[in-house]
């Protein structure tokens, strides 16, 4: 007992203050992509051609306009390296979750971040949200950074959010992976076992669009093609703070319309 207490004292209090205070992110953190379209050469498509998931659309016309579908984006470095002008970089913005799939298309304007659930749902889930996680072809990247929310660092339980073993005890599903053909039935049965009203959260590029497995004959290009999705959390994998931020926005714990705390 004494060594345990001694270690406890030495290791100290480690739970972060988020959302009351901003999170500590790595200097090289790859958050919201930022494009300086003023520097785009005429007719240049280098970023779009380099993208492994065809997430980038380059508009034609006098003023080049670059749209990045964050639902497909792997937040990799293909476009930032391919741009001859160095006009694409990743910013520190970690709040990226949206309620609608189309809101994930970043055009330079602020993202329409996830709005809170309606009044009735918030009364039901706002102070106690139980989620059943289903990995449906996830690579264990998203799963790991969802799981990490249970550690003392993030302490998800302080928000009343908990991952539960049985879908019968759950208020919704948190889905990772492109939904493989072999998981389609299990996912559907798990969803049916969740009592209504139920939520669906899609975490990661795979669950939103198929990610690197877009178009694979063995997968379904994400959860959205099979189930109604209430929250999209982009990334490959999303940083735990991005996932937590999305969940808190959904529950109205971070007010709609605000950016970073």
């Amino acid at each position, binding site marked *: 007992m004494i060594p345990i207490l001694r270690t406890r004292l*030495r290791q100290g209090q480690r739970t972060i203050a988020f959302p009351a205070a901003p999170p500590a992110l790595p200097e090289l953190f790859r958050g919201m992509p930022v494009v300086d379209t003023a520097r785009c050469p005429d007719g240049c498509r280098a970023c779009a051609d380099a993208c492994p998931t065809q997430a980038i659309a380059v508009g034609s016309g006098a003023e080049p306009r670059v749209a990045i579908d964050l639902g497909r984006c792997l937040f990799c470095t293909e476009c930032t390296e391919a741009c001859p002008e160095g006009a694409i970089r990743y910013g520190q913005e970690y709040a990226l979750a949206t309620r609608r799939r189309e809101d994930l298309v970043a055009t330079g304007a602020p993202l329409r971040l996830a709005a809170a659930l309606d009044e009735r749902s918030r009364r039901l889930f706002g102070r106690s949200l139980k989620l059943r996680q289903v990995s449906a072809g996830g690579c264990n990247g998203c799963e790991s950074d969802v799981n990490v929310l249970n550690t003392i660092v993030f302490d998800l339980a302080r928000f009343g959010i908990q991952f539960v073993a049985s879908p019968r005890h759950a208020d919704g599903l948190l889905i990772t992976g492109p939904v493989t053909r072999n998981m389609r039935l299990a996912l559907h049965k798990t969803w049916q076992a969740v009592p209504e009203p139920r939520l669906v959260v899609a975490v990661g590029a795979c669950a939103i669009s198929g990610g690197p497995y877009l178009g694979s004959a063995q997968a379904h290009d994400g959860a959205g093609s099979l189930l109604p999705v209430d929250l999209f959390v982009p990334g490959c994998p999303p940083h735990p703070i991005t996932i937590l931020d999305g969940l808190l926005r959904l529950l109205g714990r971070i007010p709609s319309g605000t950016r970073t705390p």
Partner: protein
Amino acid sequence: MSDRGLAVRPGEPVARAALPVLEPRAWRDAIVADVAAGGRLLALFGAGEAAAPTLHAIHQDRAGQLRWSLAPVRGSWPSLTSECPQAHLFEREIWEASGAVPEGHPWLKPVRRAPGTAASDGAPPFFAVAGDDVHEVAVGPVHAGVIEPGHFRFQCHGEAVFHLEIALGYQHRGVEALLAQGPDRRTLHVVETLAGDTTLGHATTACEALEALLGVSVPPRGHALRALGLELERLANHVGDLGALANDVGFLPTAAYCGRLRGDFLNLTAALCGNRFGRSLVRVGGTGFDVDPERAAAMRDRLAAAARDVRDAVALLFGAPIVRARFEGTGVVTAPAALDLGLVGMAARACGLPRDVRHEFPPLAYRAGRPPLVVLEGGDVMARARLRAEEIERSVGFVDGLLAALPAGPARAAAAWPAPLAPGHAVFGLGEGWRGELVHVLLTDAAGRIERWKVVDPSFHNWSALAMALRGEEISDFPLCNKSFNLSYCGFDL
């Protein structure tokens, strides 16, 4: 000795025409004899026409030499499995994909149940035990925690497990089919996510094979940064596993500390490249990121602080009598069983087998140096836990040394990518991920495109060890045994 296959080395391409084609019976007998005499099977797979494949085997012979041999198959071949158990999943996999039959295979059923393949029709039966008081427990594919899907079928007598059959395939995303269309823009991103907790292991191993076919030579600093990332990946996973093992026996102090500390190591990887799993760190030609002296110094300080806290958490774990009582003698895999099953990586090293690619066939990333080899006896949960604790110490020292003295020069050589590979060649990359041996075999066609890309994740060999570990154990020890291996579902399912 071409009747035993062409002598090959990882990362050294050979012309496909130079690979000896053997008569299937002689081919089979030679491999079986070599494995029985102390060799092992690294990869066995079909290539070419789907319905009439050519079988490729890469095995280690009795003298330790790696050999690559081919056998053409017309409908069937004499199975290796009854005399060489480590071939069992490879042969099932070939049968599932091609329909060609390994004659005499004792348990022929699909590996991934991939829709649309020859063997996917109907639900194959599970091995069943009959008799009074025998009952069956079925778990999965959706499990209780935040974890990948798989199905476990236990044959039990009371609490005791007679037999565990593991049925996977739920995560099958078609990885090899996607890779076979390349090389293209997507190739490295599929490699990085084929088992996301081994991003750097798979990416480095695949890149070493690709670079060999591209004639690209990675500068020393690039190799060192890859080794740095690989060992940080090992540290994060080993520390996380020790926490998870503590959690499974209800010892919460270490579970809580290691849960946090795992993140500290992931954050060191993020300090290197911006992503906690090392995505985009490894690129063809070297690494996509470099560290300046100030960042390296800051990383050393953070590494030292995390290592100190890990030591405390580990001391608590192994000092607790309840932990020792649950870990010791639980989930034993004997050394002979480990040899038969062809176990790799830390699961093998915890059974007393000195199997570590970093030492046996050092990948280029480790040519300049590597952490010392750790081998422990026992083969139980305790051995697998202690092995992790020992490897954490070795890796911390190695990483600190790398950060203190990174080779000068660029981190990356200029390389056109994606670009055609050497046409008509065959090469394999070998790596030691945190779980164990990673194999990437690449065959190119006449135009320099990928014709076949075979991936062997360490989990492919090692899931069988979990089934063996459960024999005679109480079913309530399954989570503990499972966590002590912590195998990949998606790395197996591909």
